[in-house]
């Protein structure tokens, strides 16, 4: 076509071709912009994951130091085994490992190599087996977080001594321990089994995970039945009038209200007005319930809407009452969609932090919560707390906790996707 044009009406076709080329170029440019936009968004995603994983994967390993501990009988004269001087045992073991260190200040910095938690692990060992008393044992105890950072390469030995938290003599001792094979990194079980701590090497996420679990349990038990009931009423029974309009506007609006506002509600009503205990999963669960409800209701209504009217008419036709039609036929068919919505709502509740800050779940809590009314924190709040702390070792803990949180979220969302795929019915 173009060549034919060229021969017959040259001036016009040149003009036309140029114009067309310009338009095609614009077309190309626009397409490239679109691809670039998606690429930018996805590269942010990649960057985020890379930065979290890059700074967090080391937290799953932990440095341990081997000590030759002598459980001398003199220390265990008291009946109460818990009262013995376990920190003294550790110090003594360190002194025997490095007999050349004599000066008080040097000794003090020597003791700094081992975590203060080492004394507690000795205590636990003795409690479990009192025959240890009087014996000599080779025991691996957790190293201090500074040593851990050095071994993991996050603290450079090449920095100037004043900038480092470990001084030159400490580096020397660590080098000697490494040479003797008395220093190794192992899988960090503490991270998964203990509660929060001021010492990075002793801090774990189990307390926060349990706090999250209790809160979400309350959320699920309350928001799912209420949400399903509300969705059923609004979709199947509600007359179209002023009140149902108001309910509808309310639900749509509540789905978009900032989560921190729900926290203010929890603080003012649940804690100050009803007098429920602060910082507990009970209040956290209630607040998250109110937040999750709109999500579940909206998803539930969409799923009820997708059940074809013929099912309803068939049920009514053979003499079912309206309630029987809903409970026997419509609801079972809509259930997979409702469960999917519930899982997505729960995933959002699991990741939400701001309302929990308002109701005091940010306290520093070492104990692992054992019930709904124990003081607790939640996994995302734990992340916030650790991210705030200045010690370098907490940065990797934060990233690791984020990885755990994301793993939970991915599992939940994957479950929702699989469920949707499996039970999807095309009518």
């Amino acid at each position, binding site marked *: 076509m173009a060549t034919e044009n060229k021969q017959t009406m040259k001036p016009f076709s040149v003009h036309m071709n140029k114009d067309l080329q310009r*338009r095609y170029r614009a*077309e190309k440019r*626009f*397409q490239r*912009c*679109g*691809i*670039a*936009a*998606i690429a*930018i*968004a996805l590269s*942010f*995603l990649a960057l*985020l994951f890379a*930065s*979290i994983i890059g*700074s967090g994967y080391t937290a799953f390993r932990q440095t341990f130091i081997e000590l030759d501990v002598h459980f001398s009988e003199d220390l265990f004269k008291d009946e109460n085994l818990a009262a013995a001087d376990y920190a003294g045992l550790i110090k003594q073991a360190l002194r025997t490992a490095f007999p050349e260190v004599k000066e008080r200040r040097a000794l003090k910095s020597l003791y700094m190599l081992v975590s203060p938690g080492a004394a507690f692990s000795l205590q636990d060992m003795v409690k479990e087996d009192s025959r240890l008393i009087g014996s000599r044992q080779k025991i691996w105890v957790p190293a201090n977080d500074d040593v851990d950072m050095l071994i993991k390469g996050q603290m450079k030995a090449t920095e100037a001594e004043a900038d480092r938290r470990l001084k030159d003599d400490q580096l020397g001792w660590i080098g000697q321990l490494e040479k003797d094979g008395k220093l190794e990194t192992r899988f960090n079980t503490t991270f998964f089994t203990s509660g929060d701590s001021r010492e990075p090497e002793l801090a774990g996420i189990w307390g926060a995970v349990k706090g999250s679990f209790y809160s979400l349990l309350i959320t699920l038990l309350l928001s799912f039945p209420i949400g399903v*009931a*509300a969705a059923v*009423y*609004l979709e199947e*029974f509600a007359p179209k009038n002023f009140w149902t309009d108001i*309910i509808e506007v*309310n*639900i749509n609006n*509540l789905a*978009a*209200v*900032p*989560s*921190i*506002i*729900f926290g*203010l*509600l929890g*603080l*003012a*009503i649940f804690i*100050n*007005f009803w007098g429920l205990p602060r910082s507990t999963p009970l209040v956290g669960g209630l607040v998250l319930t*109110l937040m999750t409800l709109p999500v579940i*209701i909206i998803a539930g209504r969409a799923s009820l809407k997708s059940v074809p009217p013929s099912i309803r008419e068939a049920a009514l036709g053979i003499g079912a009452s309206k309630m029987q039609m809903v409970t026997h036929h419509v609801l079972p068919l809509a259930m997979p969609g409702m469960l999917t919505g519930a899982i997505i709502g729960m*995933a959002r509740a699991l*990741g939400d*932090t*701001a309302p929990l*800050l*308002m109701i005091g779940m*940010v306290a520093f809590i070492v104990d692992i919560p054992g019930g709904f009314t124990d003081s607790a924190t939640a996994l*995302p*709040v734990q*992340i*916030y707390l650790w*991210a*705030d702390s200045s010690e370098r070792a907490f940065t990797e803990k934060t990233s690791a906790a*984020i990885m755990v*949180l*994301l793993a939970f*979220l991915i599992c939940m969302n994957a479950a929702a996707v699989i469920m949707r795929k499996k039970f999807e019915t095309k009518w």
Partner: protein
Amino acid sequence: MIYSYLPFIILLLGACAYFIGSAKAVAVSGGSGGIRSLHSLPSHYGALTALCCVLPALMVYALWQIAEPMVLTSMIKKGLPAAMLQLSANEFSLVLNDIRNAVAGNSLSGSGDTVILAAAQRYMALQATAGKIASAVILVMMIAAVLIMYSRIHIHLRARNIVEGLIRISIILCSAVAIFTTIGIVLSVLFEAIRFFKIIPLQDFLLGLDWSPQTAIRTDQVGSSGAFGAVPIFVGTILIALIAMVVAIPIGLLSAIYLSEYAHPRFREIAKPLLEILAGIPTVVYGFFAALTVAPFIRDIGTSLHLEVSSESALAAGLVMGVMIIPFVSSLSEDVLHAVPQSLRDGSLALGATQYETVKNVVVPAALPGIVGGILLAVSRAIGETMIVVMAAGLSANLTFNPLKTVTTVTVQIVTLLVGDQEFDSPKTLAAFALGLILFFFTLCLNIIAIRVVQKYREQYE
């Protein structure tokens, strides 16, 4: 003893009542035609019996749970020595607290005080008797209810209608929870905000240029009164939201257009869920990312360009918030673009327009109201977003539009004012609720406008 198991006992008796009711229904239908002569199914009679038995019992139980501490405390009060009753209200509540602690078994303060211990013992004795009485009343009530229902069941009783009516009432109550929540939000922020505006006049709060809520402990210290001019906070919030929208709108909109107009279905199938992952990441993770990676990066770039960049710059927080909002903008606009009828596109293409020209001149203008609605929703989310700004933006309220400086936002201030110890009379704490009120009404307006716009738009093409 029996009182602590009462809820289980109530439910157990309810289950029994169900079987008794349905058995009686079968029994009364024994004549000609079997259960066909009943008005409802036997299970309806059973359910009705169970409900009549359980509901009043649970109601009495719940009422007693709430009323018990008040009633018992007032009974205890009479027995306390006269000297104690003359204490001021605050001190007296401390005494009551001690008694309650002693009852709970963890007497930390004043454990040696015999008066308190005696009172606690009396409290426990009263509690035990009251529990017994309450259990007896509830059990008698339940048995009576079952007996009455048992005598009432006959073939003409419209059990199904009654049961379904009760269920209907309960699901209406469930859907009213949304209204109660909104009322709760409004009341909880409104009352505290009104108390705040009694101390700090409204115009000082809305128009004041100075924000320093830290009130001094001694009255003679400098700045003891605190300053509550919220303009710097509003400016900071708007600045960060603006940066976020500058990032999110072009990227979100362009990806939506590409995905809905150009992309191969297979590409779309992969790219769309990946974009949605961005929406599923908790905001606390974005906050950490902003503080750990983005803020230092921006500061390094700034210093290499000889610019003075604060380490908690508005730019870092806004940028990361923008990334968070991208999927929000893109999925909302994609829905809207999908709703544009294919005939409009076909018409434009048939006239010789390229696809870009079709998108620019036909599809986007047709979808514009919906896109604007989506963007308004995104703005409301950016303004209410908390964790990113708490972790990446600063606390100091600078009145500036420079994105490299530190600014603070409404949500950051709410969090800093309310986390930690609070006293509910100081303007510092109440200010958080005033800010919450402003935030709630502002986002409420945005949401309602946006939802209306989107709905209007949908109806237009349906």
